[in-house]
């Protein structure tokens, strides 16, 4: 096997957190999650080295260097010009065979694994340095031809005007190679959010799962009343299930990354959208993520309709829970000197009936 540093592509499971200089932060993070046992959508990364090889093999590197030098000190006006030149060069260049073969070999394998020809994937930029939101991510890319085209677009997005200005301000060089992540698009039959606490009252012993049909947007942006599953964090028993109305679902428009709303069948609306096994597995994964990071988490997930349980449970995004974790834990019980006084106090209180 070739040295990792010289590889053009790496599967997520071949990477971990330390590999961010090779594949970028987003990709390395996914590798790290897999290592921790957190199920993410299968896929692979184009290394930063691959981006560099592309620029070298196409001769773009040399062209840019000469052209940019002639621009002199970059100002807003010249940045716009430099961006146009660089992006045009990258997007119109032929993909070198060395790179194309490697990418397509991996893509074919991904299609095979998902039992899905021309499997839809995402093409996600992944820089070794954080540049929040400045580079592009393309969703629902199908087939070899589009994949190659969008990889170029993704690379070129590192040269949009804002990105160039940002780097200039930070004193970073003009040339900037990024990693690209190519995960299978989760064909979300159901998606939603896991809280590793009860978000209503901050109870740490519960895991709360909101879920509805289709893409996560419906739940995240409150377009539907999702099912709510309250699961015991210790025993994974389902404690409470409130079936939501789930009238609509968000789906991709056929062959595009536009999201459209469609109506959900009457029968499906009144039925719980997650099976007991799926609920248990989501709770298990939620608990695992909380244990891994050592605090309460807020997690986006999808249930992939192309895959079979338990491989269909996919974690899309994780972030620390921000409401209850910041509050100090107020006692919920009264202080008592001993068990006997506690019993007396309990007997005196009884159980309210109305």
């Amino acid at each position, binding site marked *: 096997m070739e040295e990792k540093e010289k590889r053009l592509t790496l599967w997520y499971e071949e990477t971990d957190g330390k590999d961010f200089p090779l594949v970028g932060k987003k990709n390395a993070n996914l590798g790290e999650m897999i290592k921790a046992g957190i199920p993410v959508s299968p896929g692979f990364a184009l290394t930063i080295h691959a981006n560099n090889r592309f620029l070298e093999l196409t001769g773009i590197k040399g062209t840019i260097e000469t052209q940019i030098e002639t621009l002199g000190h970059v100002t807003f006006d010249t940045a716009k010009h430099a961006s146009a030149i660089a992006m045009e060069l990258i997007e119109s260049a032929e993909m070198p065979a060395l790179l194309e073969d490697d990418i397509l070999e991996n893509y074919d394998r991904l299609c095979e694994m998902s039992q899905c020809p021309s499997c839809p994937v995402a093409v996600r930029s992944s820089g070794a340095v954080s540049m929040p939101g400045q580079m592009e991510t393309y969703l629902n890319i199908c087939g070899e031809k589009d994949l190659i085209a969008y990889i170029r677009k993704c690379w070129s997005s590192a040269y949009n005007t804002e990105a160039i200005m940002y780097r200039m301000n930070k004193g970073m060089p003009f040339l900037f190679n990024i990693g690209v992540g190519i995960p299978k698009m989760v064909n979300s039959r159901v998606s939603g959010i896991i809280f590793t606490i009860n978000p209503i009252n901050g109870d740490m012993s519960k895991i709360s799962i909101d879920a509805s049909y289709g893409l996560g947007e419906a739940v995240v942006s409150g377009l539907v009343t999702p099912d709510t599953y309250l699961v015991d964090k210790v025993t994974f028993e*389902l404690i409470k299930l409130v079936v939501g109305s789930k009238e609509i679902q968000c789906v991709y428009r056929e062959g595009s990354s536009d999201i459209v709303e469609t109506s959900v069948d009457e029968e499906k609306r009144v039925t719980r959208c997650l099976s007991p096994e799926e609920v248990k597995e989501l709770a298990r994964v939620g608990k695992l993520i909380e244990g891994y990071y050592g605090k309460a988490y807020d997690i986006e997930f999808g249930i992939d309709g192309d895959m079979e349980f338990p491989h269909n449970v996919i974690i899309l995004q994780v972030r620390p829970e921000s409401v209850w974790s910041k509050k100090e*834990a107020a*006692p*919920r019980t009264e202080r008592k000197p001993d068990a006997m006084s506690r019993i007396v106090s309990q007997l005196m209180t009884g*159980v309210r009936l109305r």
Partner: protein
Amino acid sequence: MATRFMDPHDVPTIPGTEGWETMYPYQYQFSKDDPERSAFESSQIWFYDGLHYPEPHYPFDLIWDEAWSLALSQYNTRHFMVPPALGIAHRIVNGYVYISPVGVPTMEEIEKRVPLFVERAGYYYENWDRLYENWKKKMTAVLEQLEATTFTDLPEMEDIRIIRDGVGKGSGYEMLKKYDELINLGLLCWQHHFEFLNLAYAAQVTFFNTADQIFPGIPISTLVKMSAGMEALLFRPDAELISLSKLAVSAGLEDVFAKPLKAEQLMAELEKIPVGKEWLSQLHKSRYPWFYISTGTGWYHTHISWNDNLNIPFDAIRTNIKALKAGKEIGRPTESLLKERDRIAEEYRGLIRSDDDRAAFDQALSVARLALPYAEDHTFYVEHWFHSLFWGKIRQVGKVLENAGFMENADTDIWYLKRDEIKQAIWDYTTAWATGIKPRGPSYWPKQIARRKEIYQKFKEWTPPPALGTPPEVVTEPFTIVMWGVTGDVLKGWLAGPEEGEVSNEIQGSPGSSGVVEGKARVLMSVEELADLQEGEILVARTTSPSWAPSFVKIAGAVTDVGGPMCHAAIVCREYGLPTVVGTGKGTQRIKTGDLIRIDGDTGKVVILERAKA
């Protein structure tokens, strides 16, 4: 929605049961003769004790209801001085027992009881282990005395020994005395039954509520898992069966057991071979006392024990042998259950963020764990061992009366007499015997019994409303909370009235054990039908008893009419990993054997997917 239930005085008599009141003690009736008592009755909540009594009461069987009415109440009211709670009042309506927790009326009186309770209950909690050891000795003495009691027909002539030893008393007198002693033993046993139980439940309620404050909505089943002992005694009979089954396999007796023989014939076969004899001697050791396990709750005389019908344990042994030969693991992994209990408690403890809450959790859990083994184990001593023996002794009394012509069939008839009436019948029998004349009984009791059987049948066809009277704001009586699970939500459900579900294919119960399963239903109304259970069926029953455990290796899930997440069926099914729905109310009536049903142990829903072909 209504805020109160039907007034208890307004429940109509079922046509054709007029005069039913004479089957039960007079004080059990709701009555308007005393305005004060009548007003009290109307102001209380009375709920039907379906947990203990899924069927109407036989006049004799009411003995245990009276026994617990006396014992439970006295420990709250007069012994431990539970501050806010007096006893539980009992009434009977159309054959069904209704009970009502009684509170201490004024805050001043409640406050006065606090130091008394702390002193008295405190003494028990502090000396729990020693007092409990002493309890076991007392119970063993009661059981030995019961075992030694027998009833036989009076002799034609007293034995010559009575003359020679100058005994100076007769067999008639002895029978009257023995009957009183038998009844008194029963009452004594129930005095012992509640010596610890009120305090055990108080500890349990405290733990449940403390944990619920810290972890809102934590399921009772999980709380039980954390605090419970292992119901060691109640599972012992099943463990005995498993070791007998393993012994049968290792001794090469499978072929003998494979023969379609009744227990008696099978034992005769085993007697013929040396290894069979050895097995029988092991069986004998297991039978006493473990086969006194009742096939029901032990509350009714119809709940016979394994010792009363050996075919039941023998069928279970057959099932076990098959499972063993198929390489299945059978039995209860006690050790891993204990580990699981500690893991769960530790994990919850780890999730507590406040120091005060952690201290509260520790206090409450420690006292619950101290008290709970009693709450579980006493059932084997009393409801199983004692009751099974006791019903047998009453059958002996019945046999004597049957032989004297007082009834046609002792096994089915004696229960239609109140215990005082049996005493009267024995008087009739003994005085007639002493005098050398014909007793009146044979012309009197058979008619009474026939009439009462008719009434009982009508009672059976009636559905008792879940509650009567006026709900209070707060319930403080520990039993009412723990055993019957009476909470605001439950009352609301009752007030909302019975579901108009007769046409629907869905039945709502409570989650008992997690999981969803589909299968053919097998509705079992009595334990004798257990043998009909087929592999993979879903058991549908009024309730289940620990003695049913051997069948659980066969079934795919269970549905019961009665019980909450703490009930036996739920506990066992969780251990066997079987989806279970409990407390459906009418599962056995709505579901028919052969129906294809789906049960969801997480939501408590049962769906009838396809009716059996008629």
